[in-house]
């Protein structure tokens, strides 16, 4: 443990401004940001994309592009003014006193160097250790971050590590020189929920044990609640609220923080009929409006909001940038639910719209000479479920569990290896080309990434209008144009946007275009493949509400594929839980979330962080251990037996069938 020096304040950022000179004018990415980080403290910076949170961190590290980025203000780290240091002195600080952990563990390690070399590199450079000493320290570090068999793994390459293990290696590199401060930029965003829980535990424990201050940048409020002592909320380049985690979460004093906390679906609250959302879009930083940045989207806007408010102290010991802080504190302003109560609960008395039976997909493994040699990856194994008209079926699981493949098989983007798929009574696998064409019109898809799901060479109008043209759904060009305008307004877009290209739209707008394209063929069933997971929290709520409105109005059925348990709970009527290609549990939403039977479902629900610091800090460490099994050597018997807390010899011997344990509640486990 490091001895406490005179000042408890480790990092003192005052009036930080970051500007970028771009072809579209000066983008003010951070404006007047001031905050302190004490030794050993965990500070979270929360905000949506473009709020300036990552840029602030890069400014502290002085890693912004030299030619276009302009940094102004004062950054004191351990008594040294970072902005006045020369490059050589700054390089001494980077990696030794301040280290950084990035989001993407797949790309932040060099694939051509061994892991050992990448861990020992900062040790030999910054601390001048000999190779042997550095290697010994690297083994120690790998053990510290929970990598078993550390000695032999040092000589392996990054591709031999799983995503979670790579993030552990990144943390080991970050810790190598005993830094005083670690900046972690979305450290767990790319990880699965069970792995995320493990990494969160690890980082929290290490920062306590080694007395390292931590700045965590994230958009995930659950992660913040789990970690943070203090929270900084940023919106459109400015800090809007700052205070102790409990204060900000339980008694937010800025309308934006209030809205943000309201717009996430939560596992710890009863499911509301409708998500409350923040209307509108984040302002463009190249020509930001004068006055309060949040003003245009704020439901409590008054005339004074035309003036930029100062950071005002609140009754909770925090500070918030809002003229009406006092009124909020007195409870005279509360976030009014825009909730039109309407539960889309469809009775499942009629026949199934889509019926999947024993669906199986094996991908051949390519050997060196292109032959498969009979080896296969069992991506989907014996999956069965029904979807009724107008129903939403949630399909949850971690990455690699086969949920996306199931969606692709239903869309016939992949050819199933076995099983049956029938839609409205017609067998899709034996259908002729013409029949399949007719069925395809009724089954549409919404993809995850709003950036790559629209053809960049086509205008919005062309994208939405193409199906009308191909299937001759409109008698003439004028009628087609009117229909495109109608579709766009149906998803909440102005018809003028039809002239734009996708890159000119924001993420939320693009996702709406994707929905309009899906609706053009008047489908009765839509596969939503992670349809909201790439969106910001406040936009995510808008899209979920839109999907629900459309369902009510058009009687659509959805297969909602997602990894976010809270979102699935909000939107689904029934839920299928998948793990490693197999169905673990199927039940009504409330049965799954209130009374899960399968140990995997329990573990999954336990691992999801809840945006409430009181609950999170009181919670015992997570149950889940271990990593997803490898497809090269799949487990025998129950696929979950390698990580299951209840596993026995019998579980390793037999594959448990999916059985109806209670009326309408199926689980594949011999122990329940």
């Amino acid at each position, binding site marked *: 443990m490091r001895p406490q020096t005179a000042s408890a304040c480790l990092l003192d950022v005052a009036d930080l401004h970051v500007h970028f000179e771009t072809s579209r004018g000066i983008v003010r990415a951070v404006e007047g940001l001031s905050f302190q980080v004490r030794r050993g403290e965990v500070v979270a910076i929360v905000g949506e994309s473009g709020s300036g949170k990552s840029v602030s961190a890069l400014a502290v590290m002085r890693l912004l592009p030299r030619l276009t980025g302009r940094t102004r203000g004062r950054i004191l780290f351990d008594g040294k003014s970072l902005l006045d240091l020369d490059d050589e002195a700054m390089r001494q600080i980077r990696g030794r006193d301040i280290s950084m952990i990035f989001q993407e563990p797949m790309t932040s390690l060099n694939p051509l160097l061994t892991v050992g070399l990448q861990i020992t590199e900062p040790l030999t450079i910054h601390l001048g250790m000999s190779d042997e000493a550095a290697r010994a320290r690297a083994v120690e570090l790998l053990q510290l971050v929970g990598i078993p068999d550390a000695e032999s793994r040092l000589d392996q390459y990054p591709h031999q590590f799983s995503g979670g293990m790579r993030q552990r290696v990144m943390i080991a590199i970050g810790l190598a020189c005993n830094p005083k401060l670690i900046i972690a930029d979305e450290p767990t965003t790319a990880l699965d929920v069970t792995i995320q829980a493990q990494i969160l535990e690890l980082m929290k424990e290490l920062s306590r044990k080694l007395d390292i201050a931590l700045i965590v940048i994230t958009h995930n409020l659950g992660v913040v609640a789990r970690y943070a002592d203090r929270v900084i909320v940023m919106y459109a380049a400015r800090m809007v609220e700052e205070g102790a985690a409990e204060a900000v979460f339980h008694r937010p004093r800025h309308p934006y923080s209030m809205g943000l906390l309201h717009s996430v679906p939560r596992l710890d609250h009863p499911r509301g009929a409708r998500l409350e959302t923040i209307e509108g879009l*984040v302002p463009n930083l190249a020509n930001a409006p004068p006055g309060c940045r949040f003003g245009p989207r704020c439901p409590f806007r008054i005339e004074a909001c035309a003036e930029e408010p100062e950071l005002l102290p609140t009754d909770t010991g925090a500070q918030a940038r809002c003229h009406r802080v006092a009124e909020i504190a007195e409870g005279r302003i509360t976030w009014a639910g825009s909730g039109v109560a309407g539960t889309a609960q469809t009775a499942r008395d009629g026949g199934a719209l889509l019926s999947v039976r024993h669906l199986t997909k094996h991908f051949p493994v390519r050997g060196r000479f292109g032959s498969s040699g009979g080896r296969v990856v069992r991506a989907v194994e014996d999956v069965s479920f029904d979807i009724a008209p107008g129903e939403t079926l949630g399909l949850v699981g971690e990455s690699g569990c086969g949920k996306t493949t199931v969606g692709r098989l239903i869309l016939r983007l992949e050819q199933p290896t076995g099983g049956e798929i029938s839609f409205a009574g017609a067998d899709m696998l034996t259908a002729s080309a013409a029949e399949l064409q007719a069925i395809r019109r009724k089954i549409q*898809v919404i993809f995850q990434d709003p950036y790559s799901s629209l053809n960049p*060479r086509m205008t919005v109008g062309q994208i939405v209008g193409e199906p009308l043209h191909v299937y001759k759904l409109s008698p003439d060009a004028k009628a087609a144009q009117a229909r495109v305008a109608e579709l766009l307004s149906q998803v909440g877009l*102005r018809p003028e946007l039809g002239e*734009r290209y996708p890159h000119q739209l924001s993420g939320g707008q693009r996702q709406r275009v994707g929905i309009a394209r899906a609706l053009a*063929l008047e489908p009765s069933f839509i596969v939503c493949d992670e349809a909201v997971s790439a969106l910001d929290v406040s936009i995510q709520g808008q899209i979920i509400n839109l999907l629900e409105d459309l369902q009510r109005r058009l009687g659509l059925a959805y297969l909602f594929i997602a990894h976010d348990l809270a979102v699935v709970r909000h939107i689904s009527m029934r839920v299928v839980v998948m793990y490693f290609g197999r169905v673990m549990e199927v039940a009504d939403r409330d049965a799954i979330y209130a009374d899960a039977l399968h140990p995997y479902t329990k573990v999954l629900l336990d691992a999801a962080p809840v945006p409430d610091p009181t609950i999170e800090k009181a919670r015992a460490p997570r149950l889940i251990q271990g990593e997803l099994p490898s497809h090269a050597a799949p487990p025998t018997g129950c696929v979950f037996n390698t990580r299951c807390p209840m596993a026995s010899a019998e579980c390793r011997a037999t594959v448990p069938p999916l059985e109806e344990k209670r009326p309408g509640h199926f689980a594949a486990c011999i122990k329940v």
Partner: protein
Amino acid sequence: MTIAAPAEAAPRVPNAAMEFARRQPLGAISFVIICVMMTAGIFCEWVAPYDPLAIDFVQLLGAPSLEHWCGTDAYGRDICSRLIYGARTALVIGFTSSFVGSTLGAILGVASAYFGGRIDNWIQRVVDILLAFPIIVLALVVVAAFGRFAVAGIDVNLILAIAIPIVPRVARVVRAAALSVRVMPYVDAARAAGYSHTRIIFRHMAPNVVAPYLIMLTAFIAQAILAEASLSFLGLGVQEPTAAWGLMLSGNAADFYRQAPWMILFPGVAISLAVFAFNLFGDSLRDYLDPRFKV
């Protein structure tokens, strides 16, 4: 980044050419160079000061003068006039063969990437075989196999002979680009909507590989002009005394360039300028056609 006001839709520029000139000034300049060459090539009978074949024994290896701007060659023929007549050969053979070869290659490459699996495998093995031959050798084979066949004075088989070796080279590069487009969700969306293969290949995939296509197209114009020169030298292309840039460089110019450097200087400049103009024009066209570069 967010787009704010609804009324900011750019006013439509009435003339696409003006818009191109405004956004791609270099591209516009190169387009003018190409136009000048084309005009010269098409109207060479009127533009050229002398008959390109007229031999003048008084002016052997004459230096550039007011009378002969680019000097004369070993037979006393006016180099300037020969360059102007040569533009016709260069542009017709060079541009057409490169265009035909690159376009066929691009379609093959996109189709190969789109269908994947066995079809892709077979196409690529054929491409491998064709790639094993240098351009000039393959062109020789084609000319030797098909002989000469001229339509309206244009040697169709010569164009094909140069175009065919270009096909596999472009197909390989375009396939690589198309493979990354193939896995884009918008292609999946088109497949899920039940669109035809032709529609997906031409409407959804091809426009997104236009960048490598244009780069290959303009790069191969230069190669095609040079290939035409080599074929001519070997006696399979355009024959002496026809005016052709490649022929002017490769013929007896090699013997006289010490005494008369203008004999190789001006044809060399003409080829470089043409290549340069086509490359620059291709780059500008690529940027212009990409909606992402529109502000």
